[in-house]
């Protein structure tokens, strides 16, 4: 079986090399049949990668310990579901998943655009295949998941923190996001190489970008929830380099999604969009370099591996190639129009872009600071949470405000009088909310009050947009309020889907602010029968309970929670001792309060031999809005992504128009 896997990967590599070489020659010499052949090779590479993936999956399911990878990441007692998710639990499997997703995206992009944008695709195929070739090369020559050995009696098992249902969904989502950014990058480079720098490459990749961006966003939220419920430290984001590795390309992609609208509407920012799409893609590859190279300290600890140098070389080629190409095509990228006023929709989008990119770059600076400081001074130094929080507040809070301003400002030029009328209600709501917050005692955190006041302003402006749109649609006649509302969204899916995503970001901001700025933490050593109080709740420790499962022994503290005299329930924080892995994992207990959206988060910090417990309890107000934000984010993204026949017709007309102009 391992031979079949190896053969599939070698075939994939050859197909991709052919797609690069044949596709480039075909595009250069305008050989239509050869170009089609290169496209077919790219599609076929997806087929053979599926075979390789099935071989590895089957070996994991059968516990075939003659596969080194299977022996390193599973054990006989590991439940089947975790044996299967171990596919991406290790380095070689992760690379295979990357290649699988990349070839899948490439095949889908070719199949959906080969009829409508054949000329654009000519150079896009070699670029997609070039990225794929790198990963196939790594899998064949540097880090193969099909290395074999004499079959062992049992495997090393899977790290306990990875034995979690989120393991099935969080990494694949992130990969769908990371890898998905290859498609817009390849189309952008394809457009530059073929000198077809009109808006078609943006139109052709809009959905791909949106999908990759949505996957990356959802993947990060799932990771945050996983850390929250499983890792057991009471937080959801630690500014760890590996977490930052996913956030940076997402921020760059967010900036890109906004700035392409300006290019589509006004023909501006054409160079900027090329830079942004390149930045987003290079940051996604840089994230992989960070995680594989081990050059930066991370709690995700990726041992020093030989992949780092390869990835660094690949990034250098990508960055140098992209910059050279953009510079060479500058004359073709001149803007058709200019920014007419600093108070206009496009200007607010530009401010939003600069803040997003500034945030991404300051995070990047923090991530590479240890490497740079060591190179310059000979002594590595790190920046920590205060550094990141400072820049999150400096750039994030104005970004929040802009989210409320941007959609209400007119394109091209807006008068101050019109702005006053437009913002009367959102401003009024924000002022009332700010006063109410201060009266309620929320002034203990200045940044908390500012974030909440701005959140109310943004939510009010979003609601105002929906109300105005619905009223205008109803005024056309023939429909009731519900009909007007649904037709408003159906006819402007991208715009109103975007507003829903904005609402999700507001919920996220409220959740993060509540859980960090207004958090209460208490720690206490308790003997059975003793109690502690946290933010109005009383917790009584009743003793321990232990049980043995197939691959671990579980010990649980019994904690009864009361509010006043009212009994709220029994909760069981504790620890699991895993046999094969010889590791302990924290198992937290969380009491969700559906009325307030807050959590009572209980950690059995230390289980003592004398029967006492060191109990750590965190009261996190509004934290559940963060997870609700994830659902709203998915909803908004789906609305924006949903196929729209009218829009398809508009795009078809634009393709035809652009082709004529060329």
């Amino acid at each position, binding site marked *: 079986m391992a031979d079949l896997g190896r053969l599939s990967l070698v075939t994939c590599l050859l197909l991709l090399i052919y797609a690069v070489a044949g596709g480039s020659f075909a595009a250069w010499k305008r050989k239509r049949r050869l170009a089609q052949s290169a496209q077919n090779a790219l599609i076929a590479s997806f087929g053979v990668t599926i075979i390789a993936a099935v071989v590895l999956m089957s070996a994991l399911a059968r516990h075939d310990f003659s596969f080194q990878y299977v022996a*390193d*990441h599973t054990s006989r007692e590991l439940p089947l579901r975790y044996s299967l998710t171990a596919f991406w*639990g*290790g*380095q070689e499997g*992760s690379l295979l998943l990357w290649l699988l997703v990349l070839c899948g995206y490439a095949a889908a992009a070719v199949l959906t655009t080969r009829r409508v944008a054949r000329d654009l695709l000519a150079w896009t195929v070699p670029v997609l295949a070039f990225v794929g070739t790198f990963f196939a090369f790594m899998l064949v020559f540097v880090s193969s998941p099909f290395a074999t050995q004499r079959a062992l009696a049992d495997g090393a098992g*899977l*790290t*306990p*923190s*990875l034995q979690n249902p989120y393991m099935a969904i969080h990494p694949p989502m992130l990969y769908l996001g990371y890898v998905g950014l290859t498609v817009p990058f390849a189309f952008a480079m394809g457009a530059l190489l073929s000198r077809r720098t009109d808006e078609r490459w943006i139109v052709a990749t809009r959905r791909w970008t949106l999908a990759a961006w949505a996957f990356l966003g959802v993947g990060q939220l799932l990771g945050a929830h996983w850390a929250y419920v499983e890792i*057991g*430290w009471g937080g959801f984001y630690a500014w760890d380099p590996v977490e930052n590795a996913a956030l940076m390309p997402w921020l760059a992609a967010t900036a890109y999604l906004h700035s392409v609208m300006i290019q589509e509407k006004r023909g501006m*920012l054409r160079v900027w969009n090329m830079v942004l799409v390149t930045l987003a893609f290079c940051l996604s590859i840089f994230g992989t370099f960070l*995680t*594989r190279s081990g050059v930066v*300290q*991370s*709690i*995700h*600890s*990726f*041992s*020093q*591996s*030989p992949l780092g140098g390869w990835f660094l070389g690949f990034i250098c080629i990508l960055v140098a190639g992209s910059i050279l190409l953009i510079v060479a095509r500058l004359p073709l990228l001149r803007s058709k129009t*200019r*920014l007419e006023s*600093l108070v206009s929709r496009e*200007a607010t989008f*530009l*401010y939003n872009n*600069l803040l997003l990119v*500034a945030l991404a770059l*300051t995070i990047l600076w923090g991530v590479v*600071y*240890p490497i740079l*400081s060591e190179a310059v001074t000979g*002594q*590595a*130094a*790190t*920046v*920590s949470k*205060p*550094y990141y929080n*400072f*820049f999150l507040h*400096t750039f994030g809070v104005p970004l929040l405000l802009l989210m409320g301003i941007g959609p209400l400002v007119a394109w091209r030029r807006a008068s101050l009088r019109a702005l006053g009328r437009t913002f009367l209600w959102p401003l009024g709501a924000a002022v009332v909310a700010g006063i109410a917050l201060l009266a309620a005692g929320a002034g203990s955190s200045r940044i908390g009050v500012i974030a909440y006041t701005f959140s109310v302003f943004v939510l009010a402006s979003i609601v105002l947009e929906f109300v105005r749109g619905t009223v205008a649609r109803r005024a056309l006649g023939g429909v009731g309020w519900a009909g007007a509302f649904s037709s408003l969204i159906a006819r402007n899916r991208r715009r109103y889907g975007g507003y829903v995503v904005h609402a999700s970001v507001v919920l996220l901001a409220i959740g993060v602010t509540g859980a960090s700025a207004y958090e209460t933490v208490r*720690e206490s*050593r308790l003997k059975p029968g003793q109690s502690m109080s946290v933010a109005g709740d009383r917790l009584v420790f009743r003793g321990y309970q232990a049980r043995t499962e197939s691959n671990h022994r579980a010990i649980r503290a019994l904690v009864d929670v009361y509010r006043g005299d009212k009994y709220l329930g029994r909760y069981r924080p504790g*620890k699991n001792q895993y046999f094969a892995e010889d*590791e*302990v*994992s924290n198992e937290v207990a969380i009491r969700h309060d559906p009325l307030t959206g807050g959590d009572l988060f209980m*950690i059995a*910090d*230390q289980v003592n031999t004398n029967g006492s417990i*060191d109990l*750590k309890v965190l009261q996190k107000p509004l934290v559940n809005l963060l997870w609700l934000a994830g659902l709203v984010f998915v909803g908004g993204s789906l609305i924006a992504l949903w196929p729209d026949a009218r829009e398809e017709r508009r795009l078809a007309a634009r393709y035809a128009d652009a082709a004529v102009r060329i």
Partner: protein
Amino acid sequence: MARRGSPARLVVALSVAAVLAVFLLYTSIAGGGTPVVRPSQLDGHHGRVSLMGQVVGKPSGDAHAGGKRFRLRDVKGTTTVTVVYKGTVPDLFQPGRDIVVDGRLRNGVFVAVPNTLVTKCPSKYAPKR
């Protein structure tokens, strides 16, 4: 005819300048980062540092009472230092693991800042063969 300056360029230039100003302000107020050192590099560092190394020997004491004591060795070396730590101990903390902890050297003992102990995950990614 001379080309008129674009407001977009002005916005970009002002924004870049503002970002740099904020950055310089931050670094001048907050100073640089925390130095990351190995046990063999501790001499000469009197301020707060991030100490990185491998736990050797059996830890003793109580992290929630008098403090947990353990020895930390250079990951690739033999120099060790005694660490005293109070606060939450990560699940993965045990002899043989690489850790990072903040603190400062006092009379030959590294006194850690409470709740700063981070254990490097034994990794989903296999060590170099």
